[in-house]
């Protein structure tokens, strides 16, 4: 299978990052909207997860960290150098690892599934695979060389 050009990978990374920003922003707004948070009677998975003690770290909604991660990934897609490749990979790796942990919590601790959280986890997994491909394929190369490899 032919390695896609780094330019192609960067564009896909940017696109997926924008989707991720959208999902994480929606989760943040949905959690904080409507006044004080409440535990909802007969709530579905998203309300259960949002109201669990795992949904915040130091008072900050976890989705905010997702927004930060996706913004960093978007930024890394603008540059074709080793710093951007490794930086993007590191952020995607951390985001992927955190998504695995959060999914474990949803299934085994909270015992409820939030579709939006799953969507963000899928997007972060895609980011991890894209950034790993980019790093493996183009680490150590300059932009001209990486274009030529395509």
């Amino acid at each position: 299978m032919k390695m896609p050009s780094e330019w192609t990978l960067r564009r896909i990374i940017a696109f997926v990052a924008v989707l991720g920003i959208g999902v994480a922003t929606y989760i943040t707004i949905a959690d904080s909207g409507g006044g004080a948070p409440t535990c909802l009677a007969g709530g579905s998975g998203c309300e259960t997860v949002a109201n669990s003690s795992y949904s915040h770290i130091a008072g900050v909604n976890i989705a905010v960290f997702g927004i930060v991660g996706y913004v960093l990934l978007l930024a890394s897609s603008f540059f074709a150098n080793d710093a951007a490749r490794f930086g993007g990979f590191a952020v995607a790796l951390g985001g992927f690892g955190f998504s695995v942990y959060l999914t474990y919590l949803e299934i085994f601790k909270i015992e409820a599934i939030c579709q939006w959280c799953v969507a963000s986890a899928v997007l972060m997994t895609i980011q991890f695979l894209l950034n790993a491909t980019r790093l493996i394929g183009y680490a150590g190369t300059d932009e001209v060389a990486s274009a030529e490899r395509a």
Partner: protein
Amino acid sequence: MSGQKEREKRRDQRLAEEAEVSTSDRRTRLLQMAAGAVFLVVVVIVVVIVVNSSSSDSGGDAENVSEVATVDKLLDGIPQEGLVLGKASAPVELIEFGDLQCPVCKEYSEEILPDVIESQVKSGEAKIDFRNFTIISSESIPAGAAAIAAGRQGRGWNYIELFYRNQGEERSGYVTDAFMTSIAKGAGVKDIAKWNKERKQKKTTEEVEATFEEAKKFGFDGTPSFAIQGPGTNGVELPGTLQSPGEFEEAIEEAS
């Protein structure tokens, strides 16, 4: 001349080879770092998950009820009648519909209501009436009934506050007889046998169910939810979302 060109050509070749080796080294280093990072993240995730699975929860532990002294200090000297905290003569009644398993109610209990209790409840301006609105799970019903039974011995609010501060994970099955008994003992319920008998009585459970229905009639769908009545209100009114001690104090003043 050709000798000089030869030398320059060899020099260029040598520089190109050195650049290629340098790039290859750099690439190898980066990939090694990436592999190391992946290994580290995998280890961290595995450790966190294993520790999380095996360690006991910080709350919901019948053997380890904490913050008894904090609750005693908070409520010291404030009269209680059933699940009403404050002087019976207080003109304003703040009604809290809560679920003892609700983590948001726990936050209110720990971070918002203490200021209201210290200022307006202690001074006799208001009293707080806790009513069960059991929405989290079926375990909330025996928890609420146990609070009512503790209230019959004048320790209802001690029970409620201690329960909140020792909450376990939602729906994890931590609300056992052993856990509730530990809370009751920590709350200072004197006659545990009487408390045990009364909490299991049908009339106590019916009281829990009745306040659930009352909350639904008010249109509440979450906890904690608040209602208020006093000289300045037209019967029982809904003050809306109150998110800070200041907002509670304002609502109580308006109802005075």
